């Protein structure tokens, strides 16, 4: 068994246990930060191993696949693990200044690390039922994070989040059980051949649709996204940031994995549905955002519309489109988490997140203004920021296929995104504060200011670097897309040699 694959999952859980046991001590949150630093180091190690070998896999407790539980990492998984660790580090540092004593005593940092562990596990597992278990791990810790700090509003949001996510869980479980009943295996690599060889392809499509529903609800695609804007603006800002960055992306990742590796037999049906879903998700998300006037609610709706772009990359299923989807996924996590962190700082300065009740940030805190513009413009797809390349590739891929309508929707969504971002800019930053307050950054104590701003600056720098030097990231995403489209290397690595799949 290879520790390179297991450690990125183990470390967050160790950090979680330590942070939870010491939650009544002062500074117990630093355990979480320490765990996140270790996660980043281990994720880089994993990424290097993957770049060297292509795909790596290991069998837990040394049972050969398809009988044991497989951990496997290809380019996409490894990149997702690294980006999870980066977000974990950024948010855990930021949370040191934001998450209060009461929440810490209730075990906030422990739950946070559990969530990171669950997300990492979902990215690394090579087994469908194991994926279900990781979904449960991250789901139950997200429930906890959502209600800690327990305002009435958070309880309201949590009710919708919990109930709708539980439905998706039940469907996912049912689909996994039926897959096993039909094929006799749950190992994803093994399923690739088993599903293709199954005599009743209609049944396979039915199961595929159940997976699409389950993962689609987690990924918050049209018409299953209603829980997201109902809940993401209610908890701690740190929780919002990590949810916005990572949770829906686990759903997108699962869609990408399942619909490139396992259910590719009836693409005319499944991927056509995904294409429509992608277009409607982009449009409904961005239109929903246009109607909102709360900083976090606007951002929440934009998560939905951006998910559409990633699903679009999967739905088109060409090398270029998938590359765009992967690139979008990676760039978006950084940008979105950062925007929520900035919303948190702005709330700290102005006392509210209602755009009509705040203002004056540009005059009194110009640094925050610049830091907001970087991810906001990147989200809308301005050159030369990372979002531009992501959108450019996806639009080009749809034009190559002659899908004019899709390209038009993608461009229109970009345009409307600019509208929402200028709305935030005009209301929160440009106009004077209605109460005449001067919300300067210097009103925050220096230590807290450092903790709040350093993750924001680091994530903004990453956005700029990806935007200015996109080539290595594009090359990386290209290999990731090739691996997704041609899973033979993945299958050969997971399944023991000599056994014909």
């Amino acid at each position, binding site marked *: 068994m290879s520790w390179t694959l297991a450690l990125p999952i183990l470390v967050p859980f160790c950090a979680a246990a330590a942070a939870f046991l010491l939650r009544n001590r002062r500074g117990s949150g630093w355990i979480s930060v320490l765990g996140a630093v270790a996660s980043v180091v281990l994720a880089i190690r994993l990424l290097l191993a993957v770049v060297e070998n292509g795909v790596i896999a290991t069998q837990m407790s040394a049972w050969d696949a398809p009988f044991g539980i497989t951990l496997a990492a290809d380019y996409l998984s490894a990149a997702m693990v690294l980006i999870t660790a980066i977000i974990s580090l950024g948010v855990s540092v930021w949370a040191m200044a934001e998450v209060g004593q009461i929440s810490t005593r209730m075990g906030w940092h422990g739950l946070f690390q559990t969530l990171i562990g669950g997300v990492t596990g979902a990215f690394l597992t090579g087994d469908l039922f194991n994926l279900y278990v990781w979904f449960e791990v991250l789901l139950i810790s997200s429930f906890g994070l959502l209600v800690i700090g327990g305002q009435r509003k958070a309880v309201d949001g949590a009710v919708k989040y*919990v109930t709708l996510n539980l439905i998706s869980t039940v469907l996912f479980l049912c689909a996994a*059980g039926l897959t096993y009943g039909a094929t006799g295996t749950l190992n994803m690599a093994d399923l690739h051949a088993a599903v293709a060889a199954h005599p009743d392809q209609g049944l396979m499509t039915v199961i595929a649709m159940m997976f699409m529903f389950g993962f689609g609800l987690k990924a918050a695609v049209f018409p299953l996204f209603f829980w997201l804007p*109902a809940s993401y603006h209610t908890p701690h800002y740190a929780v919002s940031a990590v949810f916005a960055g990572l949770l829906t992306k686990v759903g997108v990742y699962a869609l990408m994995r399942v619909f490139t590796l396992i259910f590719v037999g009836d693409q005319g049906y499944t991927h056509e549905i995904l294409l429509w879903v992608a277009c409607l998700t982009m449009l409904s998300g961005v239109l929903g955002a246009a*109607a909102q006037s709360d900083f976090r609610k606007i951002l929440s709706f934009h998560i939905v519309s951006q998910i559409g772009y990633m699903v679009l990359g999967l739905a088109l299923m060409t090398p270029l489109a998938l590359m765009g989807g992967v690139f979008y996924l990676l760039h978006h996590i950084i940008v979105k988490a950062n925007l929520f962190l900035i919303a948190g700082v702005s709330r700290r300065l102005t006392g509210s997140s209602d755009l009509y009740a705040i203002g004056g940030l540009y005059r009194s805190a110009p640094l925050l203004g610049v830091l907001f513009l970087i991810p906001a413009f990147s989200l809308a797809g301005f050159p030369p920021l990372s979002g531009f390349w992501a959108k450019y590739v996806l639009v080009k891929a749809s034009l190559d296929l002659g899908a004019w309508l899709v390209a038009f929707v993608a461009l229109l969504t970009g345009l409307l995104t600019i509208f929402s971002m200028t709305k935030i800019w005009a209301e929160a930053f440009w106009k004077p504060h209605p109460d005449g307050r001067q919300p300067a950054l210097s009103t925050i104590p220096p230590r807290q200011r450092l903790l709040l701003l350093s993750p924001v600056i680091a994530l903004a720098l990453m956005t700029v670097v990806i935007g200015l030097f996109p080539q290595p990231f594009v090359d990386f995403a290209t290999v990731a897309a090739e691996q997704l489209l041609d899973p033979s290397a993945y299958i050969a690595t997971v399944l023991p040699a000599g056994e014909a799949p």
Partner: protein
Amino acid sequence: METVLALLSGVLTACAVWLMLSGNLLRFLFGLLLLSNGVNLAIFAAGRLTEGAPPLLGSGGTLPGHEMANSLPQALLLTAIVIGFGLFAFALGLTIRAYRAFGHLNVDRMRLAEPEDDK
């Protein structure tokens, strides 16, 4: 036997959907409980049913001559039941918290996070 289980699973799901659409949070949870049990039965039935054939090896590790039950679906079920129990316990706790916060369990009237006159 499969037919009986399939019908039972269908009845459970139908009841679950009816309960979940009622708009009351507690009924929704009971519906969810029925739904997850319906799904559990479906998985159980999909894993092939064998009567009185436990998957045990004979003396010295020899394979028994007859067909054995497949223990994997049962292991999956146990995991799913345990996880479902934990999630349900949390959801029930949340329901109590919601009742204390709002004084009712009508989901349509829980509009605190999304006020109706939202502009």
